């Protein structure tokens, strides 16, 4: 599966770069991440909970950053495996200074999946991946705003930004918020593929599917909590 796209961060390139290399921020921004630790200068290890349709479970994996050209580009390699199967991918991330204080991120990469994730979740994987990516980037942008707001205050007061500057708390979205958004994105994807005004039946089917997925997610959460 190929993943490619663009995203505009509302902030300067150096700040985006710095943030991207902060595991604490990454961990909160990647949906379902339970832990992410820096194990080497360019390597992170962690655990992530993933749900794709009927397939759910925890992946343990590693993230490796290579071919780094600060603050312009790097290659991100991800490898994870767990009960639901495995995923492996790598992609090139480029940060382009737009000159208006914003940063254009371009990414392109390939993701290979296997096991239950592929054999049962295949139908949904592309939509879910795109949704997770979109949400992850939005969270990062939000985190960026929080950081910049902190810096901004310092600038306004006309002195060097010091450690003591109080951080405006950035609240990453919860896993449930992520999941709800995934359901919406997947439904929108399906709708884009099949919707036509005269095709009422398809809409009913999509609605039913969305409700079923939301309910499935809810019960999944409940039973997970009981455990």
């Amino acid at each position: 599966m190929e993943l490619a796209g663009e995203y505009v961060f509302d902030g300067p390139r150096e700040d985006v770069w710095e943030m991207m290399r902060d595991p604490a921020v990454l961990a909160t921004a990647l949906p379902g991440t339970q832990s992410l630790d820096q194990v080497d200068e360019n390597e992170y290890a962690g655990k992530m909970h993933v749900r794709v349709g009927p397939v759910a479970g925890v992946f343990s994996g590693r993230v490796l950053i290579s071919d780094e050209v600060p603050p312009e580009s790097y290659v991100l390699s991800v490898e994870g495996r767990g009960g639901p199967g495995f995923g492996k991918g790598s992609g090139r991330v480029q940060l382009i200074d737009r000159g208006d204080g914003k940063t254009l991120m371009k990414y392109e990469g390939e993701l290979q999946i296997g096991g239950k994730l592929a054999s049962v979740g295949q139908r949904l994987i592309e939509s879910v991946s795109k949704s997770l990516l979109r949400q992850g980037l939005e969270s990062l942008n939000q985190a960026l705003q929080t950081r910049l707001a902190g810096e901004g205050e310092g600038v306004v007061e006309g002195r060097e930004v010091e450690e003591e500057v109080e951080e405006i708390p950035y609240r990453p979205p919860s896993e449930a918020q992520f999941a709800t958004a995934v359901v919406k994105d997947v439904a929108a994807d399906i709708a884009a593929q099949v919707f036509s005004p005269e095709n009422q039946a398809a809409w009913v089917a999509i609605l039913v599917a969305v409700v079923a997925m939301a309910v499935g997610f809810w019960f999944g959460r409940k039973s997970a909590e009981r455990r």
Partner: protein
Amino acid sequence: MTKKWVGQRLTRTEDPRLLTGQALFVDDVEIPGMLHAAFLRSDYAHARLQSIDVSAARERPGVVAVYTAEDMGDAWQHGPPLVIPPPTVEDVVFHTRTQVPLVKDKVRYLGEPLAMVLAESRYIAEDAVEDIFVDLEPLEAVVDLEAALEPGAPLVHDDLDSNLAAHLVQDKGDYAAAREKADLVIQRRIVIDRCVAGAMENRGIVASWDKKAQHLTIWDTTQAPIPVRNGLAGMFGLASNQVRVIAPFVGGGFGPKIMMFYAEEVLLTWATLKLGRPIKWIEDRRENFLATTQERGQVHDAEIAITRNGRILGVSHTFLHDTGAYDPYGLTIPLNTQSHAMSAYDVPNYHSDLKVVFTNKMITTPVRGAGRPQGIFLMERLLDVAAKELGMDRIEIRKRNFIPPEAFPYNHKIIDQAFAELVLDSGNYLATLEKAVDMIGYEEFIKEEQPRLRAEGRHVGIGIVSFIETTGVGPYEGARVTVETDGRVSVATGVGTQGQAHFTSFAQIVADQLGVSPRDVRMVTGDTAEFHWGTGTFASRGSVVAANAIHAAAKSVRAKILKLASKVLETPEEELELEDGVVRVADVPRQSISLGELAALANPLRGAVEPGTEPGLESTDYFGPQYGATANGAHAMILEVDPETMMVDIKRYVAVEDCGTMLNPLVVEGQVHGGIALGIGNSYYEQLVYDENGQLLNASLADYLIPTAWEIPRIEVGHEETRSPLNPIGSKGVGEAGTIPVPALFAQALEDALADYGVEVLEAPMSPNKLFELLQAAEHKT
């Protein structure tokens, strides 16, 4: 002997038990102290096993044992080859590579088992599977058949030079010379993809070793209980009478359940012997997609050489057959393809070059049809293309090439799955086709209805094809028939039952011989404690081989009954008759004795019997045919395509069947209906989709489309009965017949429905997507 029951449309005597939940299936077996097994299966299709750590799984509460290949010691063995390549064909290249119980060095297909967990419940066992840490180094997967044979392709088996599993060439006459004389040579590439059998009941096993009795009992969804017993006894050093294999009621076989030995059969047996505790494993649906054998998977480069008046001079094809990661089933499937490529036609020259290919996919073994649908697809498609090129009617081109009724026995001179040249024993192919033509109203449809519908802008087409099916192959089956002292009759035979109505149609044979009602005949199938000689249920052979063994045993019992009754009633045997459960003197009906009383007399408690007398009214007999009986048929359908959605609507479906003497036409029709349902799946819905890494992308019934009642039309069945001269009953098999012609039929009907687009359908299964692409390509061309 009267023929009161054979041929009757008797309703199935097993149904009350099945419908009221009183039939035993493997999952119904519950034994105190039973453990449950779950398997860690590879998420990669091709990978090297670096390490496997099961320590966390072993510590989980409720887990009794976790085993890897290393734990098995000497018990870790490659499976035995189930079918060897035919010793009768010269210059066969065949590399035997058989499956293993657990991966030791290298994973060769997605889902190959790496470890087995035994726990107090299936829930615990499945959770413990997730505790196992396995380090697999992924390798490039071999998926595409042609790429697999390219130089430098990754190897499924590292010790071989290539992924070639087998190479075999068969010739009849001289194709090259025939080609020279032809007015027309047509070449086409034909592709048939993989499918599952999709039985309603997945596989299941319960294995229980009773230490004190030194006896092993195995309940198994197998189609071959006796070979499973013999094999497992041999593997684990037990006498065959220490092992009892029971194949109880089984919810559908369709071929993959004859494969042996599956890893699970070996592992559960090994573990119960080790632990002394009963163990159950029931396959789930996803496992069924990964761990149960599959079929089809061939690519043909084919050609037909033909005269301008439509007479076939020869057929030639070079083809690849996908055997998957191992080849325990030998060449059975592609041999069936070769022997059916000439089908019902008199083809003087034939050349067939077969290469069998190892891939990183599940093993292929016969699935209902077993190589025959591919052969029929090839021939029928070539004939249809030829008819179009010659401007000839499709019925006419078939008529001009049929083997005539007077030509039987007709030798196709191609070695088939029975290791001998395929000889067609009997048939009347023209009569069968003509009946189908009449039933569907072919002439009327193409002359009146179709032009009218086309004028309305509708895309409605007709298809009609012929086919043969080799059935009833040896080596043999046996049966024991016993008259009980209550006057009822017990019958035991070695074949297992997976829904074929054996309890009914076999009882009808016995009923005719012994003058009882079929409902008073108690059948036992698939239990080695009841009967332990035979091979199994496969190759559409039950109604031929087992049925004739039962027929022979029942005849012997009849002779015993008459002999004893003659003494008791003081009347010569010729004057006696068996009716309504009694033996009576024909002219003096009041002078009679019941079968129950006779059975008691045949097994006296005191007194003396004559020397050489066998006790009881019982007999065991066997039947092995000289060679297989060949059934035939013709199917026709009218189909409408919606060129907007590419969805199809089958308006009418006609199947004409010649399976020789019908034991029970109702059962025959049921078999035909079921076969057609799979055939329709194989034509337009069911396709296993693997990606380039060997990941199966549709391993669920949500994504793999098995047709439902919605997609299956009403089916009209017509019968021809050409008795087989090869067995006393005159029967031929019919279990696979329904499936065989459907992809060829469907393709022809699709082409006819879309005649204005001029498409050729050379692939099975088709799908709405593929049809859309074909139409797009056709539009671009014009």
